[in-house]
């Protein structure tokens, strides 16, 4: 995969993940082109189109368009599954995800994406594993914050050890 974009029907970008190096100008141009192409498609057309030398796969979920660009040898039908899996992961994490969740918690959407894909390839195929990693990482973040409030700055290793203890307790409940 070369890039993954999420944008709304009104043309607002909600998430952009680039797996290839481009300048800001080039990125802006690509985003404009993608929005133009995808938003212009009639409702019952196929989910694939050709753009330059890339295959574009897009799918609409409620008010958001998920748009991925694939290389020549990538499997388009599987890419649809990848997009679907990402939506499922978001749904599991946020509980009935909607566009507002992604707007207000865009950094979490990115973190989830980073646990699922890396460098354009699928990183983890298990639905549960991604959720677990997110949980543990969030816990780490929270516990650190709470501990810093009470005890001031500790070294990181202290945090991580206590976080692991706490997270284990959470998972067993």
């Amino acid at each position, binding site marked *: 995969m070369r890039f993954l974009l999420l944008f709304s029907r009104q043309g607002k*970008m909600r998430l952009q993940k680039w797996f290839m190096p481009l300048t800001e100008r080039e990125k802006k141009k690509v985003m404009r082109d993608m929005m133009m192409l995808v938003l212009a498609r009639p409702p019952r057309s*196929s989910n694939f189109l*050709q753009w330059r030398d890339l295959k574009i796969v897009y799918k609409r979920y409620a008010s958001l368009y998920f748009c991925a660009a694939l290389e020549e040898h990538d499997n388009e039908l*599987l890419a649809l599954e990848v997009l679907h899996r990402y939506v499922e992961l978001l749904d599991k994490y946020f509980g009935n995800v909607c566009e507002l969740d992604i707007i207000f918690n865009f950094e979490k959407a990115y973190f989830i994406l980073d646990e699922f894909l890396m460098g354009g390839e*699928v990183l*983890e195929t298990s639905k549960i594993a991604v959720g677990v990693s997110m949980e543990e990482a969030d816990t780490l973040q929270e516990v650190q914050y709470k501990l810093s409030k009470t005890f001031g700055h500790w070294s990181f290793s202290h945090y991580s050890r206590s976080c692991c203890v706490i997270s284990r307790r959470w998972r067993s409940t």
Partner: protein
Amino acid sequence: MSVDGPSYFLASLRRRMPAPIRLRELIRTIRTARTQAEEREMIQKECAAIRSSFREEDNTYRCRNVAKLLYMHMLGYPAHFGQLECLKLIASQKFTDKRIGYLGAMLLLDERQDVHLLMTNCIKNDLNHSTQYVQGLALCTLGCMGSSEMCRDLAGEVEKLLKTSNSYLRKKAALCAVHVIRKVPELMEMFLPATKNLLSEKNHGVLHTSVVLLTEMCERSPDMLAHFRKLVPQLVRILKNLIMSGYSPEHDVSGISDPFLQVRILRLLRILGKSDDDSSEAMNDILAQVATNTETSKNVGNAILYETVLTIMDIKSESGLRVLAINILGRFLLNNDKNIRYVALTSLLKTVQTDHNAVQRHRSTIVDCLKDLDVSIKRRAMELSFALVNGNNVRGMMKELLYFLDSCDPEFKADCASGVFLAAEKYAPSKRWHIDTVMRVLTTAGSYVRDDSVPNLIQLITNSVEMHAYTVQRLYKALLDDISQQPLVQVASWCIGEYGDLLLSGQCEEEEPIQVTEDEVLDVLEGLLASNLSTPVTRGYSLTAIMKLSTRFSSVNRIKKVVSVYGSSIDVELQQRAVEYNALFKKYDHMRPALLERMPIMEKTATNGPSEIVQTNGEAEPSAVEAKHPPPVAQPANQANDLLDLLGGNDVVPVIQTSMPTKPASAGGELLDLLGDLSLSGPAPAPSVPSSQPPFLLDGLSSQPLFNDIAPAGIPPMIAYNKNGLKIDFTFERANPNPNVAVITIHATNSTESEMTEFVFQAAVPKTFQLQLLSPSSNVVPALNQGSVTQVIRVLNPQKQQLRMRIKLTYTHKGSPVQDLSEVNNFPPQSWQ
């Protein structure tokens, strides 16, 4: 802390300044903006606040500020001032900071700027961190946006992590390794030992990423490919387990266990089995199993089937399996789901070359897809239909394709028209059919036809001698209906000019001959000249056609009048033609019949693309007049340049100087003169191209604007030749918009006491290049470096190979002619990279 002093002051300032607002609040506020201007104002205010906060080096709120900055960046506002702050966040000890910092780095930093290299040390430390989530962040960032320098520095750490037993880290390290290999292929060897037992993992995440890593290595190196072939049995086993295993809630997608892993394994098998009989043999069974047992009711099953089909077609599978694969594709074609139909058409396009007959069986379904409403499907169906046309089905297919051409969207018309022409050329069952097809395309999609098809069509018509009367009649009738489609008009006016006499005589055998008078024909042609719909090129065609008719029709006076009227036309091209034709009437009337005779049959040397037109007619035409009247006047202006010779690698024949682009009409004559000049290839000014060199075509360079598009590229100049007082410097520029074209300006200076006259510079380049020499500033190099002769060379280097050049210099010095050959090899790398 003392009560007075700077630190207290700053601290009190901090207390007085409000804390930066939270991310959520900012998002909420921005969303309340009703207009773009309002939003911009809010953002600017917040950016200012963030900037001042950054200036204060406040650790507490840095994370919050960067997060807000990232949000604003996503809306499209500039956020580059946050780049360094991201680096500070990455270096922080807090996990929250690192998370946002790495995210910011991935969004804001760009591997083209040096700033990103500052991350390298932080990433290195974090790769060795005690918390796996921090290590994960570092691996992720490196694996998504690491530049080649970073990858080189950190590859060792990644390799270490690839061998860890922690599956969370191992899978991330594997994909990070993939990225490293993509950026720095030489490092691939380093990861080889770590791949030894990757496939024996149970964890699906690690398995999947390992397969991706192996795929990447096999694709890049044939040695690795050979090395990993032994994994085929293991891969087959894993795939089998996936299919046979029971329900696993973690990996299940609509009843299929881990389709992502299955597809990746199939792809790796494809690469391993290609052109290897043993491996292909080993995977035959499993492929057949997957192909027959996969559930096809949902998209996920079809995704696996699709990959299986691609694998079967690529490896050396047995024929039964191949038939199975094509049948699956055939079933896909009939599927209701548009995506599946699209994918089927794409795969059939890939296999049509190798399994032509099998795909032919599905021809009718494919042709039906031409009528599909979906644009993507129509395009694929069109491409596939053209690939399927052969001698047997050409009539039927052409009917469908012409119908498609009539009704399709404009975006398809150009490609479809070209495709029809190509197919008609290859498989036309009869000349009449061919001309009818061509006519049909011109009349229905005339304005979308590519420019280069006009000369091809003209040549086709010329060569079908028996069809001349029929052709000109049909073209004339088409002109009466519609003069807006330029290619049609151009071909028609050329034909009328050539065969107007046949039109008058009503000799047509194929269909009912029409009755037409000379005046009517001339009316039509004059109408074209005057019409606003005609482009300058078309007008040129019409004027020449009228001129040719002066030898075929009897109303010479009318023609003379028309020609003299256009002698004062504003269009320079038309004016020149009219003036020359006028001169033909006045001073060279005795030559007119010979000059305007019927065009000879042209030989084609290539069937695709612009063809080499060689004049086989050796009719005696005085060379003096030739300089003004090129026989192939109807062809587009740059055709004359097409006859220029480009040289084979070590051949010494130099390139002929091109004519100046403002006088294309005389280029034909100049060419013949130059051939006479070449002492190397023999003195005869034969109009045919010397047979020892393969004819090359100087394509397109002459039509590019010459001097307005050059942007200096900072390439150092060089001395190309320095002997006997003559020094030639090359200076370089790169021409925009085409980065493959290097523009070299030569400066020739003479340090001797006497000047060098009749100075001619010629150059030759290897086959993979194309060269164009423009006219020199003069051909006298003044003595004692008092001036220089400059000349511009344009070199097209599409393959970015190293530039080499052989130059030949001829001049007269102190009364005696001097000739020298030299090779130029010291081109700076920037000139050809």
